[in-house]
């Protein structure tokens, strides 16, 4: 493991009360990056946000609000790249079938995946080991 690489692997109950905990961990990691020379506060906010959106997706949609299930989050961050994986045990969905929000129609919902896609460079959702994994990456060096 590179000495500037940070890896976090955490499991929390499938409940929205843990969103702030995971989001805060993401923010703290962003502030620890020695060599990142972009807007650190913006990066911290964006990591917090994509982690929150991905977890809500797992909690509400994939794991169907079942409080006995767990959400597994993996974060790997270097000076160059950010990788986030959020695992769920639910039925899954086709991420490519979710349309972007219609900006002329005011809907309460439907902005979560759009936000993730706007802030990250790659986003995929696939079946893995009997569950699903939402994987997102962001190039930090090229966007700095």
């Amino acid at each position, binding site marked *: 493991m590179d000495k500037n690489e940070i890896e976090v692997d955490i499991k929390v109950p499938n409940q*929205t*009360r843990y*969103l*702030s905990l995971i*989001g805060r961990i993401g923010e703290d990691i962003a502030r620890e990056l020695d060599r990142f020379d972009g807007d650190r*506060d*913006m990066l911290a*906010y964006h990591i*917090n*946000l994509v982690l*929150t*959106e991905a977890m*809500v997706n797992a*909690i*509400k949609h994939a794991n169907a609000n079942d409080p006995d299930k767990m959400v597994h989050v993996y974060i790997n961050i270097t000076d160059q790249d950010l990788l986030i994986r959020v695992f769920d045990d639910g039925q899954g969905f086709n991420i490519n079938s979710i349309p972007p*929000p219609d*900006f002329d129609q*005011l*809907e*309460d*919902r439907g*902005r*979560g995946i*759009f*936000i993730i896609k*706007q802030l990250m460079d790659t986003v995929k959702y696939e079946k893995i080991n009997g569950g699903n994994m939402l994987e997102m990456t962001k190039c930090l060096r090229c966007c700095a």
Partner: protein
Amino acid sequence: MNLKTEEKNEILIIFVKEERLDAHNSNDLKGKMQELFEQGKKNILVDLTDVRFIDSSGLGALVSGFKNAISHQGSLKLASLQPQVKSMFELTRLHRVFEIFGSTAEAVENF
């Protein structure tokens, strides 16, 4: 969720006293706005001074309040957004929907 309300010039001001407005607590704000419009309040101002973080659920709660205002012939406006919170309105184009003011005092003068 910690919400403080205050009435000024027939405008009901809701101060969201939380650092995060997210999927965990946004339903409380949504319910509060709905309750106030159903009680007959016409003008609601949501002050977001303390909110450092908003997600799509928080934005959705405010959109719900905005639609509720329209259906009750009222209005919903926003004040005191922190820069990163404001950037989320811009990312989702919602800055074109809401009237957003720099301060509660400024917003109160513009109802």
